[in-house]
C-alpha cells in the first residue's frame, strides 16, 4: 500500500533557499534554521467556548510536501489560518523560514511568501482571472492599473507552472477545477514559497486531482514547500513526504511517509484508546468484530421507490441523473460517496425542497412527486437534514418550538397554537431522547452540537413515520451522541421503517447499512449488499475509477 517514492531527502539542499525566480525575497541569512520552512510550537486558539487548537505544533522542511491530517474538527484549518495570518494565536510561537512571525497579519504572511488556498474559494466571481490574481498587488503604470501587464504576468505564471486557465475570463464562468487553479496562481503570484492547500481534492474529479499532484511536484522540484490539509489517507501516502497528525486541536505525532502505513496514521488520527472510532476513517479496512450480525434485508413491497429521478443543481447541470432505486421496509439503504456528487440534491428532491426535472417518487405506492414538503411529511416521510444549523433547526427558537417544526399545523387550531400540547410534546421528547439541558424554553442555539442533533432526531424519529431520510446524521456530534443516534437508527430499522442513509463517513455507512450504493456524478456507481462491502472495495467506485 505504501506507494511513496522516497526521492525527497529528509533535508533539502540549502541551495533551494535561493529564490529560483524573481520572487519576493525572504529571510535566508540565517543558514542554521533555514532548512525549516515552518516551525509552529505550542499554538493555542479558542473561539468563544470552542478550543480549536491547544498545544499544536507543525514543523515543515523546505522543499517538502507535508500532509497535515486529522478528522473533521481536529483543528487543521485553524492552525493553517494562524500560519497564514488570518487569526492571531492565543499562545505559541510561529517561525517561517527562520524568522519569528508570531501574531503576524495576512499582508505580512503574503510578503514573507506564505500563501493559502482555502477550501471555500476566495475568488471574486465578477472579476476576471487576471484581476483576481493581481488583486492587492496590482501592477501599475503611473497611477493606473496596468491591465496588460496583469494579463501577461498571469499568462506567464500559468505557462510556467502548468496551471492552465484563461486569464481573461470571468471567474464566475470557470469550472471548480479551474477556480482552484486560480487560487493557486494567486498564491504563487504573491511569491508564495510555502503553499498551504486546505482540502484541495474535496471538489475535484480524479483527473483534476492527478493534474494537481503534477503541479505540486513541479513546485516541489522548484524548491517550494507545500502543506496539504486532508483527511484522505490515500492522498497522504501518494503525494506527501512527511505527515503531521492532529487530534482534538493538538498535534499527536509527526511521521515520515516512507516509514508509516495508513493504519498507523489512522490510529494516530483517532487515538489508540478509542478502538470504536477506528472504522471512522475512510480508506482503512476494519473488521467489525463488535458488530452483531445483521439480519437479512426483508423482502416485500418497497417503503420508498424512486424511478428515473433527474434533479438540477443550482448551476443548472444535472446533479442527479436518471436515478432509480427502492428501499424495503426494515432496510437501511446507505449511500456513500465523496460529497458533491448529487447526494444533497437527491435528498432535497426526495423531501420536496427541490424541484425535480423528471422522474417519480413513491412512498408505499403513494405518488409523491407532486406533493409539497408538508404533504410528504404528513404522508409519513421523516427527514434529518444534512445541515442542522441551516435547515434542521431555527436556532433562536426554543427546544419546544423546534420539536414541532414541520408539524406546526398539527399543534394549531383556529387562531392559536396549542401551547399545552407543545409543552407536553417537548417534555416527553426531551426525556425520551435525553436532550440536555432538559429545559424546553432554552433556545436551540445554546445547546451543544450533539444535543442540537438530538432535537432533530427526536422530532423526526419520535413520531409516526414510514420512511426516514437521514443525511449526515452524526456530523459534528460527540462520540456519545453518535452511539445514541446509531442505536436509534437501528431501532427504527428493526421496527420496519425504510431508511435512506447518506453519509460522507464511509465507516458509518458500512456500519449501519443493509445495502450500500456509491454515488458518483449523480448516479450510483454500484449497489451492493453491505456484507460484500468494505472500504477497499468501495473506494474505487467513490473516485469514479470503476463503473
Amino acid at each position, binding site marked *: 500500500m505504501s506507494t511513496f517514492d522516497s526521492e525527497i531527502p529528509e533535508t533539502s539542499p540549502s541551495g533551494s533557499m535561493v529564490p529560483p525566480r524573481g520572487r519576493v525575497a525572504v529571510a535566508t541569512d540565517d543558514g542554521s534554521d533555514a532548512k525549516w520552512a515552518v516551525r509552529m510550537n505550542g499554538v493555542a486558539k479558542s473561539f468563544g467556548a470552542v478550543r480549536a487548537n491547544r498545544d499544536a505544533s507543525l514543523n515543515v522542511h523546505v522543499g517538502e510536501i507535508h500532509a497535515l491530517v486529522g478528522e473533521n474538527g481536529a483543528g487543521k484549518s485553524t492552525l493553517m489560518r494562524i500560519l*497564514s495570518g488570518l487569526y492571531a494565536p492565543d499562545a505559541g510561537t510561529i517561525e517561517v523560514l527562520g524568522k519569528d512571525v508570531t501574531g503576524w497579519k495576512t499582508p505580512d504572511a503574503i510578503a514573507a511568501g506564505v500563501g493559502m488556498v482555502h477550501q471555500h474559494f476566495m*475568488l*471574486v466571481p*465578477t472579476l476576471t482571472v487576471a484581476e483576481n490574481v493581481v488583486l*492587492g498587488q*496590482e501592477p501599475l503604470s503611473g497611477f*493606473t*492599473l496596468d*491591465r496588460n501587464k496583469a494579463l501577461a504576468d498571469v499568462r506567464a505564471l500559468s505557462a510556467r507552472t502548468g496551471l492552465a486557465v484563461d486569464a481573461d475570463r470571468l471567474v464566475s464562468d470557470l469550472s471548480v477545477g479551474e477556480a482552484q487553479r486560480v487560487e493557486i496562481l494567486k498564491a504563487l503570484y504573491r511569491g508564495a514559497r510555502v503553499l498551504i492547500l486546505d482540502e484541495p481534492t474535496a471538489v475535484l474529479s480524479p483527473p483534476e486531482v492527478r493534474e494537481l499532484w503534477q503541479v505540486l511536484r513541479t513546485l516541489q522540484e522548484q524548491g517550494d514547500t507545500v502543506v496539504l490539509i486532508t483527511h484522505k489517507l490515500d492522498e497522504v501516502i501518494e503525494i506527501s513526504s512527511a505527515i503531521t497528525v492532529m487530534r482534538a486541536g493538538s498535534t499527536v505525532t509527526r511521521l515520515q511517509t516512507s516509514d508509516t502505513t495508513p493504519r498507523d496514521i489512522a490510529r494516530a488520527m483517532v487515538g489508540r484508546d478509542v478502538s470504536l472510532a477506528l472504522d471512522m476513517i475512510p480508506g482503512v479496512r476494519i473488521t467489525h468484530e463488535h458488530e452483531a450480525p445483521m439480519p437479512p434485508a426483508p423482502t416485500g413491497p418497497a417503503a420508498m421507490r424512486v424511478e428515473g429521478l433527474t434533479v438540477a443543481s443550482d448551476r443548472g447541470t444535472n446533479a442527479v441523473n436518471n436515478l432509480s432505486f427502492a428501499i424495503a421496509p426494515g432496510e437501511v439503504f446507505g449511500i456513500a460517496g465523496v460529497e458533491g456528487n448529487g447526494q444533497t440534491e437527491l435528498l432535497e428532491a426526495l423531501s420536496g425542497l427541490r424541484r425535480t426535472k423528471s422522474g417519480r417518487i413513491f412512498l408505499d405506492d403513494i405518488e409523491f412527486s407532486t406533493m409539497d414538503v408538508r404533504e410528504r411529511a404528513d404522508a409519513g416521510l421523516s427527514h434529518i437534514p444534512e445541515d442542522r444549523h441551516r435547515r434542521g433547526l431555527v436556532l433562536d427558537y426554543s427546544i419546544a418550538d423546534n420539536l414541532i417544526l414541520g408539524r406546526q399545523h398539527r399543534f394549531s387550531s383556529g387562531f392559536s397554537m396549542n401551547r399545552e400540547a407543545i409543552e407536553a410534546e417537548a417534555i416527553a421528547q426531551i426525556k425520551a431522547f435525553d436532550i440536555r439541558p432538559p429545559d424546553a424554553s432554552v433556545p436551540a442555539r445554546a445547546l451543544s452540537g450533539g444535543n442540537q442533533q438530538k432535537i432533530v432526531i427526536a422530532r423526526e424519529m419520535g413520531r409516526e413515520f414510514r420512511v426516514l431520510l437521514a443525511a449526515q446524521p452524526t456530523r459534528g456530534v460527540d462520540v456519545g451522541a453518535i452511539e445514541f443516534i446509531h442505536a436509534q437508527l437501528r431501532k427504527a430499522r428493526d421496527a420496519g421503517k425504510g431508511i435512506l442513509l447518506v453519509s460522507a463517513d464511509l465507516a458509518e455507512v458500512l456500519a449501519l447499512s443493509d445495502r450500500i450504493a456509491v454515488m458518483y456524478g449523480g448516479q450510483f456507481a454500484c449497489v451492493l449488499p453491505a456484507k460484500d462491502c468494505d472500504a477497499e472495495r468501495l473506494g474505487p467506485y467513490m473516485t469514479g475509477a470503476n463503473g
Partner: protein
Amino acid sequence: MSALGFGLQAIRISIPYLLAAAGGVMSERVGVIALGLEGLMLSGAFGAALGSYYGGSPWVGLLGAVVAGLVITSVLAVATLRFRADQVVTGVAINLLVVGVTRFYLRLAFGSASNSPRVPGFGGEGAGIFASFENPIVYIGLVALPALGWLLYRTPFGLRARAVGEKPEAAATLGVAVTMLRVKGLMLSGTLAALGGAYLALDQHQFTDGMTAGRGFIALAAVIFGRWEPVRVGIACVLFAAAETLQIQLQGAQLVPSQFVEMIPYVLTIIALAGVVGRSVPPAALGKVE
C-alpha cells in the same frame, strides 16, 4: 424653447443627480447601501450656504459643503462599519438627522425656519440659463461619473473596491484592508453627494428647508436603473433630468399630467428591479458588513 435650450436645461437639472448618483455608485460598490444620499445632499446644500454666507465666497461654500458631507458620512461610517448597524435603518436615520440638523441650525444661524438669506453663488444673477454654466460644480458633475468609471476600472483602488463590494472575505485574504477601503469609498461618496447638494444651494443663492426634495432618491433610482455601472448610471441621470425638463416645458400644455412624468424614475427603477428589461443585480456584499 429651442433644442439647445432644452438640452442645457436638462443638463442643468441633471447635475445634482449626476453627482449624487456618482456618490451612490461609489458607496454601493464598496458594499454600503446608499439610502442616505438625500441626507448627504441636504447637508451639502446647507454647508454650502453656511460657508458661502460666512466666507463671503462660493468657494468657501464649496468647502463648507464638503466638510458637512464628510461629517455626516463619518456618522454613517461609524454606525455601519464600526457598529455594523443595519444599513437601511442607518440610511433612513441619516436622512431624518440631516433634516433636523439643518432646520435647527437654520434657526440658530439665520434665525429663520424656512430659508437662509441670499448667499454669494457662482455666476451672474438672473442672467438666464447660461448663468448656471458659470458654476464650476456643473463641470465637476459632468466628469464625476466618467471619472468614477475610470477609478473603478482602471486603478488598483477601483479593483479593490469592486472586490470588496462583491466578496470582501476574498479581498481580506489578499491583505486588502476592507474596512479602510470602505471608509475611503464612503468619504468619496459623501463628498460627491454633498457637492450635488452644494450645486442646488449655490445655483439658487440660498438654502431652503428640504431643498433637495427627494433628489437623493432619484439619484439612488438612477444607480439601480443604471445597474451600478457609472456610464449607464450617467445615462439614467440625464434621462430622468430630460423627463423633468419635459415636464416643466409641458406644464401649460396638459398633454400628460405632470405627476405621471414625475413617477418615471421610480417606476422605471421598480421595473428594472423586477427584471422585466434585463435584470438589475446589486453588488453581492451590499448591506453586509461582517
